[in-house]
């Protein structure tokens, strides 16, 4: 029955442009490998035009290719949460500030989108988030590829069950944060000579005073601070998604099909024994 009022039987969304995604990923990996293994000769301390150009074009171009490859496959339901994630990333700094928090927590939106809508949406949210942030703070711009990686990894972690138990979330956060820190370090070094906040620079100074090269010192610092930040972010996101109404979670095909939250919510509506065992936790019958 082909009525003009109805849609043809589900054909699914558009296929991702795999070539673009692969190219983008490859460019980011190649850039990273180039920067850490070849370590352009002139950068005893981190200055140099080749290194910074490669950083800028490799990571930004890679991020752009990823986004271009991912966007066509996103459903409208993923699409509408991405601006929300981006706005949360940028605005939470302020709320955190007004509550007197000491950490940045600038990836809560990215991780939230990744958990609900999957790794692809998470990666695009991360990349675009930093690109938009660049309009108010240009220093965020070159870190777009790193942010995309955080979103991608958070989505993969969610897919394989890292958000089914509260105690798994910080473990995933630690791992993702460490990887994120590794990737962010060369950007900071080659673009800005590892300039950061006073806090992060103090840590770098400690390693430098022990004789480490700038890239090594920045990498160690990245491993430390990013892991801590992501542990907190992952736990906060886990607690938020556990508190969401089940119906809100269920509207996301990714969260539903991969049972991202385990038995808590997002399970199919039938009163399954799993849901009864773990649901709510209030103990009220």
């Amino acid at each position, binding site marked *: *029955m082909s*009525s*003009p*009022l*109805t*849609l043809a*039987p*589900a054909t699914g969304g558009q296929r991702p442009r795999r070539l673009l995604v692969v190219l983008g990923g490859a460019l980011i990996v190649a850039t990273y490998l180039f920067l850490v293994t070849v370590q352009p000769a002139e950068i005893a301390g981190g200055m140099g035009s080749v290194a910074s150009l490669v950083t800028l074009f490799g990571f930004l171009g890679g991020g752009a290719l990823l986004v271009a490859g991912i966007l066509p496959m996103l459903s409208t339901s993923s699409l509408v949460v991405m*601006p929300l994630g981006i706005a949360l990333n*940028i*605005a939470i700094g*302020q709320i955190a500030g007004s509550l007197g928090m000491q950490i940045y927590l600038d990836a809560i939106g990215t991780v939230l989108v990744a958990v609900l809508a999957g790794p692809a949406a998470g990666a695009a949210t991360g990349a675009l988030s930093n690109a938009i942030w660049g*309009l*108010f*703070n240009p220093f965020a711009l070159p870190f777009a590829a790193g942010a995309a990686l955080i979103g991608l990894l958070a989505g993969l972690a969610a897919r394989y069950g890292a958000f089914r138990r509260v105690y798994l979330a910080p473990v995933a956060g630690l791992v993702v944060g460490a990887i994120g820190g590794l990737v962010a370090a060369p950007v900071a070094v080659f673009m800005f000579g590892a300039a950061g906040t006073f806090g992060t620079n103090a840590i770098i100074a400690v390693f430098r005073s022990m004789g480490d090269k700038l890239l090594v010192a920045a990498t160690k610092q990245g491993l430390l601070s990013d892991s801590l930040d992501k542990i907190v972010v992952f736990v906060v996101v886990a607690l938020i998604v*556990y*508190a969401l*109404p*089940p*119906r*809100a979670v*269920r*509207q996301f095909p990714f969260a539903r099909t991969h049972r991202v939250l385990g038995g808590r919510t997002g399970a*199919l*509506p039938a009163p399954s024994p799993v849901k009864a065992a773990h649901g*709510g*936790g*209030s103990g*009220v*019958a």
Partner: protein
Amino acid sequence: MITLESASFAYDDGTTLLTDVALAVGPGEYVIVAGASGSGKTTLARLLAGQTGGDAGSSFRGTITLDGETVRFDGVPTDPRIDASVWSAKVAYVAQGAWGQLSMMSATVGEEIAFGPANHGVPADELRRLVGDVAAALGLGDLLHRDPRRLSGGQLQRTVIAAAVVQRPRVLVLDEPFQGLDEHAAQDVATALEDLRRDGTGIVVCGPLMPRTAPQGARVLALAEGRRVFDGPLAEAHRAGLRRYGIGIAGDPPRTAPPAPVDPTAPVLVTMEGVGFRHAPDSAGGRRTSDGASARKVRIGVGPGVRRTRDGGGSRRPPDGATAGSGLTGVDLSVRAGEIVAVRGPNGSGKSTLLQHLNGLYRADTGQVTVGGVPILRQPTGTLATTTGYLFQDTDQQLFERTVLREVAYGPRAAGVGKDEALRLAAEVLDRLGLGASKASHPYELGFVQRRLVAVACLVATGSRVWALDEPTAGLDEPTRALLAGLLARHAGEGGAVVLATHDAAFADAVAHRTVRLDAGRIRAGDADLPRSGSSP
């Protein structure tokens, strides 16, 4: 033109609604779908809009016929899926709550209205003509260059309607389009709808109450617990005794006993003496307007770049005229234990500002505020929560727990009550308010009215002596209005005091001992202690 025949609609949690309900809407017709909370109004509106819910785990059995073409649903996964874009060109839908219906990417009302046709690739000249026509029809001509995110409630609602009808649909379905609007804004929206109807658009308006007046020939479809209980002209509906189904008439007083007289020797619980207050000129929340309906008028300021990107560069967008609510000037008020005081006044007159002085959210610049014997000075706002219970106009800002029971137990817990005792207290209050069955539900999975009741339950359970309620009756159905009136009377009877800000004259007259009128931040001279109308002292 559109005919809905519903055999049943089952939600994923097992609730079944709209059993054997049929509705046909023709050109130029005006249909009011009225029913208490949970009666299936929104479900019906969504079905008309072609949202049959197959993707949300619910199942619909029945048929919808649009322009002679019938689509049949059997509640199975192989049911046809409606092409929302084609459907909406014929049947436009305006859901509850305008924010979700803004694209958020338009910097002007004009762009927002043009969003739909632009998606279909309508050329620029044609776009401008379409937008101009619709704007003229809905009285938005002067607002085309304004930022839709900074409009007042009534303007925003008309913008959303304009964006829905720009493709000239044959039928327009609206779910509670008047909720949260003051009289003036509601009148603007009603006029706009009437103009559309005269041009031949069929209009369906869903709401908890029947309106007192409606366009000539308006029909009422009354629903109760998912079934049809009445179908006929409005005048007949008024006389059909629909109150037994929880369907009241807008502007009717709630059914409640007149308030018990106040003991003139009772202790004074609230004193405001010469309170003056000015909103900070540029803080994000400091310029919160005083009335929720227009709370969106707040001028928004976030980090240095954001505003700039919007109004930088062009003179195309004049600064918007949205004004913050006035502060307060020389406000004196005293409320005794056992007394209920209503605060009334137009939008922006400072009602919410006054209320928020009672729980320390705002601190008086001059003068003094004392609540429950405690002068409000510099103590953290959170520590005053046990003294003053505050009901916000937008309930959804208050709730955050995973279950209704934990939500209601939060107040007593914060006040230092032990966990088990708090849960017991919460359960008791919920039973009293008829929410016993929802204890384990997530607050946000309840309907609007129940969510509102949960927020009220939080106040009751916390046991604060002073209640400050901001527009407590907005969007409520008849039974809940009466329940709320009873709760207020009981609280007063137990020695509490209530101050409520409201547009709802009938409710204020029925429950309050006296009404205070605010105008531009001042208590209007002459009737500061106006006895409630229609009752002898």
